[in-house]
């Protein structure tokens, strides 16, 4: 049971990072990014391919975060002239374009086969209880990112982002270079998603393109809205609750006897859906709403 909980906690940590990244973009700055999974994939693939190719992780990991950040900045430069619905469509499209690239450019990405046998950091040293070590690693990264983002949110930079979210014309009139701030926020969120991708790839030791389907982006949105967008603690809680629902319902079917086969799987998804709908009706702002004036 401990090993199982460790595995789930590790995956919660990865999802929490993704949600924190999206919170910078949507929660703080109001930028709709339906392609969060794209930067997750950039981080995962860059690190995986470099590591499998023999690069040391101290080089592969910063390179992966750097490339994810650059991809975010690049997309933002092109797409942020658009707003709301149009931005949503462009980011969604970017995610699919990237997935198809990963699937078809086999010379670089190994195509549909995926990248196997990704090295796991310090595996030999922590051989006996490696999963616990990895969980600790993930939790440390989450804690550092969380602390940094909390600082950022309260800083003048964070205040500008929130001002842009509320009304970007007002922010522009106040003399803020709105476009530059938006690009920075988008790139920062993308970099955090890339970091999540790294941890994901080296945990599973295997990545393939269909892990990065558009619905994964929607799961990140679910976690953020569930937890409370704009609030970093909400982002953490949202990820925990979402995976808790997905995993908790797994045990429900071991108990309820008349659910068999396909019915189990369907019931699991219905249960998750119902809980989400109820939460949204009861707490539309999320479990932990953003506190006004909390800086």
């Amino acid at each position, binding site marked *: *049971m401990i*090993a199982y909980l460790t595995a789930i906690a590790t995956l919660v940590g990865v999802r929490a990072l993704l949600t924190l990244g999206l919170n910078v973009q949507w929660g703080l700055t109001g930028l709709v990014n339906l392609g969060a999974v794209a930067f997750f994939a950039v981080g995962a693939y860059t690190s995986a391919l470099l590591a499998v190719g023999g690069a040391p992780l101290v080089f592969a990991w910063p390179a992966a975060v750097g490339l994810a950040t650059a991809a975010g900045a690049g997309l933002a430069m092109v797409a942020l002239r658009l707003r709301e619905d149009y931005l949503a469509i462009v980011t969604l499209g970017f995610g699919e374009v990237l997935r198809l690239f990963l699937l078809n450019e086999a010379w670089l990405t190994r195509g549909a*086969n995926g990248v196997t046998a990704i090295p796991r950091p310090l595996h030999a040293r922590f051989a006996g209880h490696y999963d616990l070590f990895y969980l600790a690693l993930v939790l440390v990264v989450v804690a550092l990112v969380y602390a940094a983002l909390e600082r950022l949110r309260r800083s003048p930079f964070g205040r500008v982002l929130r001002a842009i979210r509320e009304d970007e014309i007002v922010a522009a009139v106040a003399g803020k270079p709105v476009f530059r701030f938006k690009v920075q926020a988008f790139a920062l969120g993308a970099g955090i998603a890339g970091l999540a991708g790294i941890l994901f790839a080296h945990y599973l030791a*295997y990545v393939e393109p*269909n892990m990065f389907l558009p619905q994964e982006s929607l799961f990140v949105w679910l976690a953020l809205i569930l937890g409370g967008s704009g609030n970093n603690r909400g982002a953490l809680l949202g990820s925990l609750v979402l995976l808790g629902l997905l995993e908790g319902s797994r045990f429900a079917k*071991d*108990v309820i006897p008349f659910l068999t086969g*396909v019915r189990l*799987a369907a019931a699991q998804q219905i249960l998750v859906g119902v809980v989400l709908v109820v939460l949204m009706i009861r707490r539309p702002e999320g479990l932990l709403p953003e506190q006004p004036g909390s800086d």
Partner: protein
Amino acid sequence: MTTMTRRELLKASGTAGLVLSAPAILSAQSKEPIPIGTLCPLTGAGGSYGPDMQRSVVAVVERINKAGGINARPIQLFHEDDQTNAEAGVRAARKLIDVNKVVAIVSTWASAVTLAVKPLCVEARVFVIGVSGADSVTQGDHKGYIARTQPNTNLQGRMYAKFAVSKKEWKRVAYMALQTPYAQSFGDAFTGVLKAAGVTITDSLIYEDKKPSYRSEVTRVLATNPDLIMLEGYTPDSVVMAKDIYRAAYKGAVLAPSFAINAKFIEGVGAEVAEGIWNMDRAPLFDSPAYKEFSAAVPRGDQSPYAPQAWDQMTLVALALAAAKGEASGTVIKDNLRTVSNPPGTVVYSFADGARLLGEGKKINYEGASGSCDFDQIGDILSAPFSVQQVRKGKSELVMIINP
């Protein structure tokens, strides 16, 4: 006010979590039954195959338990849905391994899922047997904990080619495949054999999933004037493709895997479009006593080639455990798999017969519903007969069986 409700909510969800997980904790502690997990796709792209596979496994276990279990220990099954998704598969596998303490996971389907759960199963010394086709599944250092009853893509490609060569009128062949982990390696094996036999490969094209129309792909391939189009895909894309090929007034033949050209395919395109399409797959051994027992126990099972394989996987795992007589573990299964599946030994077709002979200290060689089930060193099936069928008046009819 808001803080109160939040606390209540947290309390409620925490309690619910505990209550839900309690029975699993209890069942993991009971020592007597041997826990075995299934990891079939019940939802997602594989959702049309997983339920039949799971049903097969359940039917085998019912028989084993009725016959007194493995060395007087019953099997307890735990089912998880991999959602045809690698990450969901990993979470499900972790639950099976860590909470249910399974010694084996049977009937994985998608190659991506098998590849993703492979490292953690090898590390936890849990035996995995599935139907995934990609070559990388059995490659690498897995210490014998991985095996599969599905022929690897190389063998499949060569068998399809063998049939295509036997049809003398097919002089020009085009290969079209859905982008999957096996599209490339299947194509290489298939076109390799054909070229060696003097057949011209007019075009080789890998296409994307979920396109509303394949007009441009079909136009390109038909411009090369093939006598046969080898269409390697799944049902949904094959439906769109077959309609577009028909609309383009193609007069030649089409060959495809039977798992794509199933009843749903024929319903989707209509009998007229489907008429004459050749399809092949790993043949169940229709005459084998194991297949007869299987088809009596799993009435709908003969609709997919995976259900008989799931039947054999569960039987093999049980026989390997029975051969050990001592503790039940993944290591015991991988050490004994080839002892009970490969020659030499008395040929047996069911767990009951095999377990009886093992009890008398004899060697056995299990011949299953899906084939002879003989494994090589890396866990691949050594040989398998293939069935050739053709759609005639809205139904796939068996034409012949090809042996390697």
